[in-house]
């Protein structure tokens, strides 16, 4: 059970000590890796005669871009970069447990932060696309009586987003730990492929897919 807790790595000695959790430190590591990789990969980009490295990079990014563009369309083009950042971050955060780090997404603070960002972005996209008056009116659609439910959605959506991600990662971690207790050799391999890798990417995909879908809904 010790492993499930998110330990405080260190405490900032101001205001009576601010605890910095492990998940935040791992997030810093992920950020450093992502930025370092981008700096290395993005060097010497060429318009013509691209190398294999650039081809792979462009294929990956245009795949993500086209995926989000297909959902959001021309109006939501400006949010694609953020969504791509989030999918990269969650994808890496979910599988970084394989490298011996503790997945940041196993900390509720991280998934809640992601979900809060998502709901802010969802509502912001609605306001930006329609103007605040129409955005407010959209809560009373299709009829006024559903307005409370629509307002409730403001909280349900981030809650379901964050809990889904948190629960999946935590659950798969627990299952893997139990399997390791039952039989430490060979048996965990196929399960690890499913729970750590496949489920990790699926959850990253689901998270950004739903965020994009809600944004699309709000923008219409």
């Amino acid at each position, binding site marked *: 059970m010790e492993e499930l807790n998110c330990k405080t790595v260190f405490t900032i000695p101001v205001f009576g000590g601010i605890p910095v959790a492990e998940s935040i430190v791992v997030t810093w590591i992920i950020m450093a890796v992502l930025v370092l990789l981008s700096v290395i990969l993005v060097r010497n980009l060429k*318009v013509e005669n691209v190398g294999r490295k650039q081809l792979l990079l462009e294929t990956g990014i245009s795949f993500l871009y086209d995926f989000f563009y297909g959902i959001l369309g021309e109006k939501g083009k400006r949010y694609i970069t953020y969504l791509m950042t989030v999918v990269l971050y969650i994808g890496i955060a979910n599988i970084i447990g394989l490298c011996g780090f503790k997945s940041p997404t196993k900390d509720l603070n991280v998934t809640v932060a992601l979900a809060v960002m998502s709901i802010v972005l969802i509502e912001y996209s609605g306001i930006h696309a329609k103007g605040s008056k129409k955005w407010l009116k959209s809560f009373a659609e299709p009829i006024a009586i559903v307005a409370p439910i629509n307002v409730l959605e403001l909280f349900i959506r981030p809650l379901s987003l964050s809990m889904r991600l948190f629960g999946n990662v935590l659950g798969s971690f627990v299952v893997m730990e139990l399997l390791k207790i039952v039989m430490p050799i060979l048996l965990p391999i196929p399960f690890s492929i499913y729970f750590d890798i496949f489920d990790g990417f699926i959850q990253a995909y689901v998270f950004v897919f739903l965020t994009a879908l809600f944004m699309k809904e709000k923008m219409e």
Partner: protein
Amino acid sequence: MVQININLVFEIINLLVLYLLLRKFLFGPVMNVMEKRKAMIEGGLKHAEDTEKKANELKEQYEIALSSAKEKSGQIVEQAKLEAKRQADQILADAQKEAGQLIARGEEAVENQKQLAMQQMESQVAQLAMDAAYKIIGQKTSEENDLSLYDQFIEKAGDSHDTDSN
């Protein structure tokens, strides 16, 4: 285990920083390059389209020029044919005229010959008549006789003629 604390804020800051960093170092440059390539390809396509359009225009022009040239050459040939026909007709007419002239001249010559022959024949007939007269008279004496006879003949004939007229 499940608690929300200040780390939520840290995570949000982390995400924003990561977003800005990745936009600056990863998505920005890559999208920029892709955008540039897209623009280049579009430019190339547009250029190709323009060139094709121009080529088509030129082709049309050439076709028009070609067809007009064909028409013109046809006209020239037609004109040449007409000219040739006209010349041939002219030559034929000239030849006919000349031939007619030649025939007329020939006929004239023949007529002259005939006249000449007639005159000769007349004189010969006179001789013949004279000879016949000699034969009838039965003698052929001399030149003087001849002349006297002739005179006599003329005289008689003239007399008779005179008497007739009288």
